[in-house]
């Protein structure tokens, strides 16, 4: 503290010109870290430190209580031949492949519609966005009600249309698709808003010029609007892919991984391995596997967008 104090006075005292450089450096460093230090310490302490630790745990057989047993890469080797993990990976990928393109398509379509100067646009936007604010827990519980085979609204609608009744979340073959529909209900609001903002950034005179040159509405969309939405599409694709690969909450509050493991996802698997079966080592290895796959897909998408000359990053 006395150094800080001295530093401040020295600027007014020209005689102390030689030490003032070092004192001022110290003062600057202390001020800088005074600002940046607390948050940086928290972020590093709660992510880099545990991330490194998670890797060390993944090289062990450990239940959190008994002494850990170092087993090298055995956890990773076991991952390759674990049929339950393989099934979880398959479910997660199926969900991702269903969810990401439909959320992007639907988001873009709704945003284009909401960008028209028509009545009730505010009402529509509010309706479509509100589910995004609802938590996954509440969404899951509500969905269990709506898709309940006996007294759910979904089957009532099917009955009114004269269609056969479905088991939805209680059917092994339908559960994952239904969870995807629920996730879309909760997430599309986000893509809509992001696309809407991008649409409003497209200069009006470009569109008008294209119309003057005789382009019809579809041609304007195809050759002016769509290319302008490229960067946002890259961003939302990556964002939604990461979200999809980490699916957990909705599964927990609808099917708890069932029926018969049909909706077990990777993160759900990590959760059960680590916190139900206390296999901390194996759980950490699977989590690292997920991290690696997420990184690969993200980097792949960025490289692909670079090659297609879409400047997103």
């Amino acid at each position, binding site marked *: 503290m006395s150094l800080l104090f001295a530093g401040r006075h020295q600027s007014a005292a020209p005689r102390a010109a030689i030490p003032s450089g070092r004192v001022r450096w110290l003062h600057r460093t202390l001020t*800088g870290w005074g600002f*940046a230090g607390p948050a940086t310490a928290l972020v*590093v302490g709660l992510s880099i430190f545990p991330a490194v630790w998670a890797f060390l745990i993944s090289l062990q057989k450990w239940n959190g209580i008994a002494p850990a047993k170092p087993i090298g890469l055995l956890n990773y080797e076991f991952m390759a031949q674990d049929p339950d993990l393989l099934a979880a990976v398959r479910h997660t990928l199926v969900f991702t492949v269903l969810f990401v393109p439909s959320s992007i398509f639907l988001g873009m379509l709704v945003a284009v519609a909401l960008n028209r100067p028509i009545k009730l646009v505010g009402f529509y936007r509010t309706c479509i966005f509100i589910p995004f604010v609802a938590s996954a827990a*509440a969404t899951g519980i*509500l969905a269990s009600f709506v898709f309940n085979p006996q*007294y759910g609204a979904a089957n009532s609608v099917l009955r009114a249309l004269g269609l056969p009744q479905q088991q939805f979340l209680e059917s092994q073959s339908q559960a994952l698709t239904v969870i995807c529909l629920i996730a879309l209900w909760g997430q599309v609001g986000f893509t809509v808003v*992001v696309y*809407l903002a991008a649409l409003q950034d497209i200069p009006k005179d470009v569109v008008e010029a294209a119309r003057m040159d005789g382009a019809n509405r579809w041609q304007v969309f195809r050759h002016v609007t769509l290319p302008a939405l490229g960067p946002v599409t890259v961003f939302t694709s990556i964002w939604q892919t990461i979200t999809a690969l980490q699916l957990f909450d909705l599964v927990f509050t609808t099917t708890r991984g069932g029926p018969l493991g049909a909706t077990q996802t990777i993160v759900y698997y990590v959760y059960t391995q680590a916190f139900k079966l206390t296999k901390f080592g194996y759980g950490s290895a699977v*989590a690292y596997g997920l991290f690696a796959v997420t990184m690969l897909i993200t980097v792949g998408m960025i490289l692909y967008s670079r090659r297609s000359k879409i400047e997103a990053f």
Partner: protein
Amino acid sequence: MRRLPFSPWHLLLMPLALLFALPLVQMVLTAFMPDGDINRFPPRFIPTRLQLDGFIGLFNESQALRWLLNTVIVSAIAVIAHLVLCSMAGYGFARLKFFGKNAGFLMILATIMIPAQLLMIPTYVMFTRLGLIDTLAAAFVPWLASAFGIFLMRQFFLSLPAELEDAARIDGCNTFGVFWRVVLPLAKPALATLTVFTLLGSWNDLIWPLVAISDESIYTIQLGLANFQGTRHTQWSLLMAGNVVATMPLIIAFIVAQRQFVATMTFSGLKG
């Protein structure tokens, strides 16, 4: 072809809007519905009469009010800590010159890619050793600051013209004075964005409380609801009442501050 009396886009938007809104309407109606209306075949959408049994049952048979209070505390601490710590760090990294600045900022950027699931196991072990498991602190400590928040604030401060700060400095303000009196008042849009994201994230978080908290009186509302559902999965009026309690604060906040929410999503999306 005869023109429709309204824009054809309504044919797309009206059914979609109803599809998105009606489940929430049904959630609210079911919360106020007598069990007889819910468990009959075919089920009713509009209740024959409204009653508070769902809420009374919820508050009698669970500690939902306690859970709600816990969540309010966790979110309030998360938002306040985020606003203070991330804006200070963002300002430091954007404007101040100091030893270790680039290394520190690079480390923060690197953490953005680390998924939360990876951190759960070591954080659980760490919190057990610190005695934080099964306390409210376990729920809010991970929300005190975030790499995203620091990054967001830094980007915002970089976009501000530096001249204003120079003027204040010449007028005799010290660094903290410049930050507090000149910079922060200009940062309201970014601070609002940070508030929205932190509130959404901390209020709706499920997996971390699920891992870190097993004492029922410490539950957050999301964790309480998810576990309550496990034991009462046919008492729909209670469950929907719980859903109303858990979602309405954010939905009302959203409707009141809709403009800011949308601006926030836009901001994050484009700067993403």
